[in-house]
């Protein structure tokens, strides 16, 4: 099913667009951060998609079953790492946002810029 592969890649591209758009166009810092994690999720989708083999199964051996097609485990490992990196970034970003709220009383980018210019 070739068009399915195409659909997966298109979904990746679309997700990338949506997340990236939120990062650039949204003024709210939390919204930006959510956009950022969607942007990263899109990349996860790309990696996992490329690791899939038709009629494959998860790369875990089972007793007694031999001669099986396994999907490629390497992209999965990479994405495991990337997911954890992503949540770390989000956690740190939220920490900064909370500090910004405490110092400025706002988490809207345009308001913060205005406050410092005063």
């Amino acid at each position, binding site marked *: 099913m070739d068009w399915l592969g195409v659909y997966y890649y298109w979904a990746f591209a679309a997700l990338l667009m949506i997340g990236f758009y939120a*990062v650039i166009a949204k003024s709210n810092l939390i919204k930006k951060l959510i956009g950022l994690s969607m942007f990263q999720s899109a*990349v996860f989708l790309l990696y996992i998609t*490329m690791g899939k083999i038709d009629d494959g199964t998860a790369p875990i051996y089972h007793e007694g079953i031999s001669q099986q097609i396994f999907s490629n485990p390497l992209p999965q490992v*990479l994405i495991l790492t990337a997911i954890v990196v992503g949540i770390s*970034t989000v956690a740190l*970003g939220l920490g*900064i946002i909370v500090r910004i709220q405490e110092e*400025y009383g706002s988490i809207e980018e345009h308001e913060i*810029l205005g406050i410092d210019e005063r």
Partner: protein
Amino acid sequence: MSAWAQHLPALQVGVPLLTTPIIVLLRPHGLSWAAATLTSCFTFFIAVMLTVAVLQGQQVQYSMGAWPAPHGIALSVDAFSAILLLIVTGASTVALLAARQIVNAEIEASRQPLFYTAWLLALAGFVGILVSADAFNIFVFMEISSLASYVLIAGGSDRRALPAVFKYLVMGTIGATFYLIGIGLIYLMTGTLNLADMEVRIREVSDQKPILVAAGFITIGLALKAAVFPLHLWLPNAYTYAPVPVTVFLAACSTKVSLYLLLRFDFFLFQPNLLNHNIQFSYFIMPLAILAILAASSLAMFERNLKRLLAYSSIAQVGYILLGASLVSLIGLTASVIHMFNHALAKAALFLCVACLATRCANLRIDSLRGVAKQMPWTMAAFLLAGLSLIGVPGTAGFISKWYLITAALDEGLLGVGLIVVVAAGSLMAVYYLWRVIEAAYFGKTNEGAEIVGEAPLGILVVCWLVVLSNYYFGLAPSLPTTLSSAAAQILLGQVP
């Protein structure tokens, strides 16, 4: 000893990395600075040992977990990474040596162990990028260094650091994700993550489109992290509002490490394997480099805050580094690499002077620095001497890189003449913006009601002068950086020395 010598690449990363949990566990009161500084010194020492090994012509390779590449993760150190290792570990050590008083003043004692932990993590991240020979591993260490840098920048007492660092976080993450997309596309086409293996297998890829797009994503992503001109927006505020020792550290190395990756990927991976890549690379990079030099320098010329002025100057210097690389020639690349080294020296010295000033002056606007040279003669003398190196006056380290850059440009004929004009204009703009500071400090009338301040603490001053003098040492006897950088240029162009 020789048994340990083979572990050097692993130790280079391992030492700073594994010291961090120990510091967190013990949280030694007042000693965390000493622990971090000692670790940084030791890391620098390892970097020196590695450089010696590279200079002796050894192939420094290391397989993590004894799994051979491409299945396991390999580390490798060549001349290019060696010179960057020296820059990064040296800058960290120097900045830490000068950091204690300022950090004591800015950060509560209870939070200091965490601050120094973050510092070592940033160091380990940078070093990890430099020794790694695996594309994905580079991403992981890039994230360690980035996250730790965010923490460091937000560490100071200035609240404006927070929005600045958030912007940095967003742009840095976008850059890293772009890099990840690029690596994913290459992996899609080659099935490997090891850089050397990748290089071999890209050659066999028939359809070059994904590789081309990957090259684009990686270059843009890294350019974002390296603050290449139109993508530099995060840098000025981040450098300005960070605690000064952090600025010393990051200004000397964070953009350099991204530039290192940029050059490594573009030259090592794509240049030999993509049709016309040298032309595309030049067309893409050269205008940006020229813009960076001219635009950032002119922004610096009208900037009133000393730290931001130097930050803009850093963006301009990134332009010089890229300009050398965009010529895609041996001398051009040599100029590029050696300018990384020399600019790190000059900028570290300048920011150390700022650190000296920051211990005594409440505010770092040029207006409020009038007449400060009378009270802090040694600091301002150091600033002057370091400034000369940034401008590129003969006898200083900065001159060496300008020399190589112009020599490289001369090989380009008419285009080269234009480039020389740009370089010269950039240098003159540097004269202008640095001289505004010098003039205010030396010949300005001391502000009414300004309190009498003394010379900076001796500890910081000594470190500052050490770096300033090394600017002159490497200006008069530059054989170490020149040897390393010409070897690096050869490696990048695939001419194995």
